[in-house]
């Protein structure tokens, strides 16, 4: 049976996020002949909205209000609610991003919907959609369904394929002026912390450091490698506890769970809590002095050696290769 699927898209630094395209890809398949409606909420998204057509949307709604220039839970909640009201979808999809995590449960509670969070895969079986999601930080998975009524799920970045961009697919963006009242929480300021702007959960490449980096300065060679690979830097709890870096970089059972294309673990012993956060990465490289380190048990490639020797060599080698190509 065909379904109308509403996808809430999201922008960061004035660009649509990949996870929104991935959600559109999922929506296309789930719609099964129904319509895919892409929606974006903000103060002024004219220039972004159209791209949603290119990635598979049949209709695109840009819900706008001047107070929506920055995200607030109350403002966006009201906008989302009005979009849902006007579309009456059979399925709602959103990214399992900071925004998606903050907003979706509230929306689900208001609409009395079951919500399946942090989906990494799905299958369409006749009328049903069965979602796969990690539990115990990826030590196990569960398949879950919404019992009845509107299906609502948030999609984890980097896991579901988006459609190839098709610039020929286009249409008329529908603008919807939303009403926003009563903001109980207001945004005073945003302090941008990540210099690269690449969030760990969406990064294609992560170079992570553990206790073996020995100091805050020890992250320097890792940063250089990450930059060369267009990735970002992460850390184990050990490195965060030792105050070599900020907790926002922590990967593991407490901290972020990541699934990049390439994960390079430098001086990380591989405690089970850390492995839970990264072992579903596509390719894992481990660099560690200790040949017995647990991290080698999950690594696709391992180099036993001093990270301060290996990492700069690796950066250099990749730089050479790029020049050669």
């Amino acid at each position, binding site marked *: 049976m065909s379904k109308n699927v509403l996808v809430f898209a999201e922008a960061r630094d004035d660009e649509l996020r990949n996870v929104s395209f991935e959600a559109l890809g999922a929506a296309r398949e789930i719609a099964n002949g129904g319509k895919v409606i892409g929606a974006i909420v903000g103060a002024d998204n004219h220039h972004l909205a159209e791209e949603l057509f290119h990635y598979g949307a049949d209709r695109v709604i840009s819900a706008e209000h001047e107070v929506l220039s920055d995200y607030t839970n109350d403002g966006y909640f009201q906008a989302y609610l009005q979009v849902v009201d006007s579309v009456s979808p059979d399925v709602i999809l959103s990214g399992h991003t900071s925004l998606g995590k903050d907003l979706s449960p509230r929306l689900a509670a208001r609409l009395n919907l079951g919500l399946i969070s942090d989906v990494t895969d799905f299958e369409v079986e006749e009328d049903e959609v069965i979602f796969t999601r990690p539990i115990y930080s990826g030590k196990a998975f569960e398949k879950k369904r919404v019992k009845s009524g509107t299906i609502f799920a948030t999609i984890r970045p980097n896991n579901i394929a988006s459609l190839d961009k098709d610039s020929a697919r286009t249409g008329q963006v529908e603008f919807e002026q939303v009403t926003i009242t009563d903001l109980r929480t207001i945004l005073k300021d945003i302090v941008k912390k990540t210099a690269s702007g690449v969030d760990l959960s969406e990064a294609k490449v992560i170079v992570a450091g553990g206790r073996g980096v020995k100091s805050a300065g020890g992250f320097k060679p890792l940063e250089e490698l990450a930059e060369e690979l267009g*990735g970002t830097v992460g850390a184990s709890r050990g490195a965060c506890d030792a105050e070599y870096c900020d907790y926002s970089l922590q990967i593991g059972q407490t901290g972020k769970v990541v699934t990049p294309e390439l994960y390079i673990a430098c001086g990380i012993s591989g405690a089970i809590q850390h492995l839970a956060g990264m072992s579903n990465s596509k390719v894992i490289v481990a660099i560690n002095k200790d040949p017995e380190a647990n991290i080698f048990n999950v690594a696709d490639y391992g*180099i036993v050696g001093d990270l301060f020797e290996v990492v700069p060599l690796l950066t250099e080698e990749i730089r050479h290769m790029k020049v050669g190509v």
Partner: protein
Amino acid sequence: MNIYVILKRTFDTEEKIAIQNGKISDDGAEFIINPYDEFAVEEAILLRDKHGGEVTVVSVGDEDNEKELRTALAMGADNAILINTEEVEEKDQHTTASILAAFFEDKAYDLILGGNVSNDNSTGQVGPRLAEQLNIPCVTTITDIEIEGDTVTVERDAEGDTEILKTSIPLLATAQQGLNEPRYPSLPGIMKAKRKPLEEIDYDELDIDEDDIESLTETVTVFLPPEKQAGKILQGETADQVKELVTYLHKETKIL
């Protein structure tokens, strides 16, 4: 200040996961306070010590949860309440949030704190759902909170960026790592915790309609990920190993 903390009992982060009879087996598993909820307990105690008032920890589950509630009491919470839902067959986040909403209906609270996710199901739904049901503002993933009168200033982690928000009490906030460093329960605190009140109520003592707490989602199956095969440890001179690695990465990932 009347502060409540919603607290979940979860597997210790060190536990390996096994499946038995189609379910996650808890045979011999060690349990802990969900680490994010532990941040919430610590923050509640710090806020109480600063502003006065009481900290009450609430947990939805069965009698086993008493251990984690006692731990919170030993850390310094004043009261603990267990809402027993052993009889509820199918539970999801909607169920838990609705039971808690019924519990809070007649309570006077200024602040409800919880973890931003649990380390088992990791949905992060219960906090925001509860806030919506109670019709109070909710801020998730907080890393700092300051209260002055009715005004609350919160710092919130948004994927590495820090948002600084102004809101007011009553408020529900969920803790992110970095909010504080939870204390170990002191040994004298543990001895004292024995004498602190731990109240148990059955969920059906609350003003609640069975239909309203029925789960909206269901689990079809649980499974373990395929075991990761140990990979290749490269050999030879470091420089050669690095070259070999780059060749592999070039072949096998789209990155290079």
